[in-house]
């Protein structure tokens, strides 16, 4: 294995971490807002307080880790993505600010503003949509070089069906992941009403998810045949992912093993996410940038990897402690 692969694997793994725990957070805020509108607010607010408030900062650090790490390992990405993504990422930052300030001002401070909760819920859908655009752009065809600097073409981006397919997928995935997790969490807490509601949402969003995921594969075939070919050569990963998906839904349907259902879901997404990532190889941005021509120098690569290993040794026990206290502690979960 060469250093480039090690670097991107670390980053991709952390991005996956962000997508999973971020989705729980984003989806929960949306369900919370939705329940406010249909006057069922008390069901979810409690869970957001108990689980999300202690961990949202950690969630955010996963994202920071990814974007700091990618500049470290692949400095040239700063030039291509940094120059072109000014507007989409800035909008993402504003949405992140809405979420962060909700925790700061509403759950920690004096609370109770309905409009804020709605805004917070809305940001839970808009944020994955705006961040997922980056993945679409990486497929190529939207960035052109003018006078030696990259320029993003918004018109082609927003008229391309692939863009909207990815946006839809990100939103359905967020809702599905979040609902499945919260079903389990509410069940742990012995909150039957919340469990019932979240299970309903999980089942509701399961099939839209699979439809949009299939839709992307179709769209990709037209947009980037090269990538499509590589994706197809990894068909077994996606097939396995699909089987796990069916199992999760089956557990949810049968109202049992919510914990295993969620673990299967994580593996399902991991397979699909890494399958997608591997088929993207070696491009970071079709067709301008590959892992190899954007990679940092050898000395920096080695020192980043050493720093990563040391940091990781510090991180794992701390994360374990956090999860043990807030996720697996029955007393805390059920609010005692």
């Amino acid at each position: 294995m060469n250093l480039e692969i090690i670097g991107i694997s670390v980053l991709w793994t952390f991005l996956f971490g962000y997508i999973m725990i971020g989705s729980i957070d984003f989806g929960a805020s949306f369900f919370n807002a939705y329940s406010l509108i249909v006057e069922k607010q008390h069901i979810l607010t409690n869970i957001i307080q108990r689980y999300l408030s202690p961990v949202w900062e950690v969630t955010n650090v996963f994202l920071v880790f990814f974007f700091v790490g990618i500049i470290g390992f692949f400095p040239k990405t700063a030039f291509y993505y940094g120059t072109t993504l000014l507007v989409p990422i800035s909008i993402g930052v504003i949405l992140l600010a809405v979420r962060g300030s909700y925790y700061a001002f509403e759950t920690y401070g004096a609370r109770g503003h309905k409009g804020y909760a709605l805004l917070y819920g809305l940001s839970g859908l808009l944020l994955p949509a705006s961040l997922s655009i980056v993945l679409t752009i990486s497929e190529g065809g939207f960035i052109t070089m003018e006078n030696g600097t990259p320029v993003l073409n918004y018109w082609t981006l927003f008229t391309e069906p692939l863009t909207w397919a990815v946006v839809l997928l990100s939103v359905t995935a967020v809702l599905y992941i979040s609902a499945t997790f919260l079903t389990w969490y509410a069940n742990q807490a012995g909150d039957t009403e919340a469990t019932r509601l979240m299970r309903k949402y999980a089942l509701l969003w399961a099939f839209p998810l699979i439809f949009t995921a299939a839709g992307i594969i179709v769209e990709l075939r037209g947009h980037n045949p090269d990538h499509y070919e590589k994706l197809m050569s990894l068909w077994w990963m996606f097939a396995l992912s699909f089987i796990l998906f069916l199992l999760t839904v089956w557990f949810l349907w049968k109202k049992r093993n919510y914990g295993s259902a969620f673990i299967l879901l994580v593996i399902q997404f991991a397979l699909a996410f890494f399958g997608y990532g591997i088929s993207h190889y070696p491009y970071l941005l079709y067709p301008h940038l590959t892992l190899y021509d954007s990679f940092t120098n050898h000395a920096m690569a080695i020192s980043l990897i050493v720093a990563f290993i040391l940091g990781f040794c510090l991180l794992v026990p701390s994360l374990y402690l956090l999860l043990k206290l807030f996720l697996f502690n029955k007393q805390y979960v059920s609010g005692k």
Partner: protein
Amino acid sequence: MINEESVFYSRVLTETTLTFHIIYATLGVGVPLMIMIAQWVGIKKNDEHYILLARRWTRGFVITVAVGVVTGTAIGLQLSLLWPNFMELAGHIIALPLFMETFAFFFEAIFLGIYLYTWDRFENQKKHLLLLVPVAIGGSFSAVFITIVNSFMNSPQGFDLVDGKLTNVNPLLAMFNPAMPTKVTHVVVTAYMTAAFVLASIAAFRMLTSSKHVYHKKALFFTMKLGLIFSIATAVIGDFSGKFLAEYQPEKLAAAEWHFETHGEAPLIMWGMLDENNDIKYAIQIPFALSILAHWLPGAVVTGLDQFPEDEIPPLYIHYLFDTMVTIGMGLVVLSLIYWIGVKRGWAFIHSKLFLGLSVLSGPLSMLAIEAGWWLAEVGRQPWILRGIMRTSEAATTNNQVDLMLMLFCGLYIILGIGTIVVMSRMFKRNPVEQELKDREMEKGGVQK
């Protein structure tokens, strides 16, 4: 290809974001240490007041941290969005401390989450206090790492540029550059100092306006004492920073001191004005002081601006930034020293309205000194983004939409700033100290003093 407009707006946006972030970042570094010391004193003396102090500070701290995380994420992304050429180069050489900083964030965020939600879950208070140690360490280390990046920008080393190509990159050498020791220590110590005085301001404000409770007296004495220690350390390390500049960035020191010609026995110029011939008027001149600040000796020669090409001289207004910082630093040493001696000797003067009023000002003034110091350091580096290697104008994005983003972010910071103030004041008004003390004593069965 340089796009003048993008350069201009990128600079304004960077300045705005950093100026805003630094307020929260400074508190994020300093306040956990204050909480830790207060809780420790509380446990040791078995004094419920200090524990409550720690508790109430923590509540406010959570809010500042959350806004710090939001603005920090913004600046982290903006560095790549606004300065892509710089980040591409910097990524090759100085990415290591930036990367390590994310681990410091992780560490801090994890333990802060645990600390906050476990106030009454431990029988043994000391165990709970232990959870705060990683928070304080994480906060201080994020400052250390980010400041290492910044010191690299001021005195880059650890690589060779051959025909525009990077070779011989040594990330550790880049981290341990000449600016690093003074810069890191000055930044960390000033953060502690600022946190102490900001908390002192709050205590003084309560004593001035409403409450005469002994709780506030203890709080003021406690924070002023810490403020005294850290402000003395600040001045000492500030002096070393001056010596660093004289050796490695003489143009910054010369511009800050309006030192136009290279000569010995140089006086330190405080305040004053420049006329059209660059003659200095109305200034206070302290003989030999600049030579001492730069090289320890009253006779030492200090490099002047005459040694530098016209287009490499930083803006001369940084003189006022330097003076603001130093005046505030010296003033606060004196203020906290008077208070400390006053308490020991029982002077009535320190309980007067005038003195309390001055103490209320100490927090905002230290924050102003932080801002002035950063502006001095960053503007004093201009026109370079990486001193001697890359100019700021070459580093900026070519994207045309920076002006729009500037307006967007200004709106965001205004909302966040107002939100912080409103939420904090509401939180503490609803929850007065006297009430909380009563509640806690009832809870504990009144055994505590």
